[in-house]
């Protein structure tokens, strides 16, 4: 009876972290609503590409969010190899998942824009190819984590893959400057930039909204992964102590 009461108490109660998470979600939602209103109702149509250019305001922030996930995976992986903890492994795993989700958005919205702007969905342009490669590395990471078990060795192998995946990020970023290709370079140093204040505002809002959403998603996923690791340890302890009469396998 006492055990049940203490468990119930532990599962309730709102912490400061919860309030910070709710605030992040609320702010991200407000920014998304503003962004949608701006993109569809106020931002002018681009001169040569027409309305399809508006994909840009979701496509570029998605790519940026993919970088956030990949960076989290890299940081979590490096920290895990230095000193293994559940939280560090959870950060790496959640980061890889965020990178795959936003990478998938980038790799689908980009070709939809290209169909109009270039006349075809896909070409083996350096930026497109390196972005695809990066997403595939993180897909491989998740497949490894999903099917290879959750032991110390598997976690370390995945951490190495997480670090390897991060080396491709600067290549994606600088590929449009170093190699020839068709991908636009509008917002890089050599690009002409956005030629209307509303276009700049929409892109800025897109970055803010997607960043907040990616951080919130990362946070939520880390929390679930840490919870899963703690639960797995509790299950093992329960079996070792003879509390849980199920088999360990």
């Amino acid at each position, binding site marked *: 009876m006492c055990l049940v009461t203490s468990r119930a108490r532990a599962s309730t109660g709102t912490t400061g972290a919860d309030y910070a998470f709710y605030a992040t979600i609320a702010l991200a939602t407000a920014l998304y609503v503003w962004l949608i209103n701006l993109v569809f109702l106020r931002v002018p149509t681009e001169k040569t590409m027409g*309305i*399809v250019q508006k994909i840009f305001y979701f496509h570029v922030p998605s790519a940026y969010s993919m970088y956030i996930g990949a960076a989290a995976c890299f940081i979590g992986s490096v920290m895990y190899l230095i000193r293994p903890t559940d939280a560090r492994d959870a950060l790496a795993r959640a980061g890889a998942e965020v990178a795959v989700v936003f990478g998938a958005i980038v790799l689908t919205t980009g070709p939809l824009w290209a*169909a*109009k702007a270039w006349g075809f969905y896909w070409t083996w342009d350096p930026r497109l190819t390196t972005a695809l490669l990066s997403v595939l590395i993180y897909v491989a990471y998740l497949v490894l984590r999903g099917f290879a078990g959750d032991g110390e060795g598997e976690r370390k192998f995945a951490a190495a893959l997480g670090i390897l995946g991060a080396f491709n990020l600067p290549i994606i970023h600088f590929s449009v400057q170093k190699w020839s290709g068709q991908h636009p370079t509008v917002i890089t140093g050599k690009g002409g930039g956005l030629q209307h204040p509303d276009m700049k505002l929409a892109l800025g809002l897109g970055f803010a909204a997607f960043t907040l959403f990616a951080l919130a998603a990362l946070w*939520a996923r880390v929390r679930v992964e840490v*919870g899963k690791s703690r639960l797995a340890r509790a299950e093992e302890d329960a079996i070792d102590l003879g509390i*849980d*009469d199920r088999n360990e396998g």
Partner: protein
Amino acid sequence: MMQNTTAAAPADSAHAPLTPDGRSTTFQAVEGGPEQHSGTTLLVEAYAVLWVILMVWLLLVWRRQKDVGARLDDLEKAIDRAAAKLEKK
């Protein structure tokens, strides 16, 4: 771009059955041509894809949390069983 020679036929003959003489006899190239993709449709598709991907992800996260919940339930039941055994002793 493929062009059908019957496309230039008058409107009143548009629904007339095709005769062997009315079929295409040449394929002519054209510069530019009609648009292959509607920008509006592509924009809507891109926007829809964005939200579909996020919703599928949310669904997968939900399923994973459900699995964690089920494991927690099992563990709680095991603890309750052990507690009941202790009380009996």
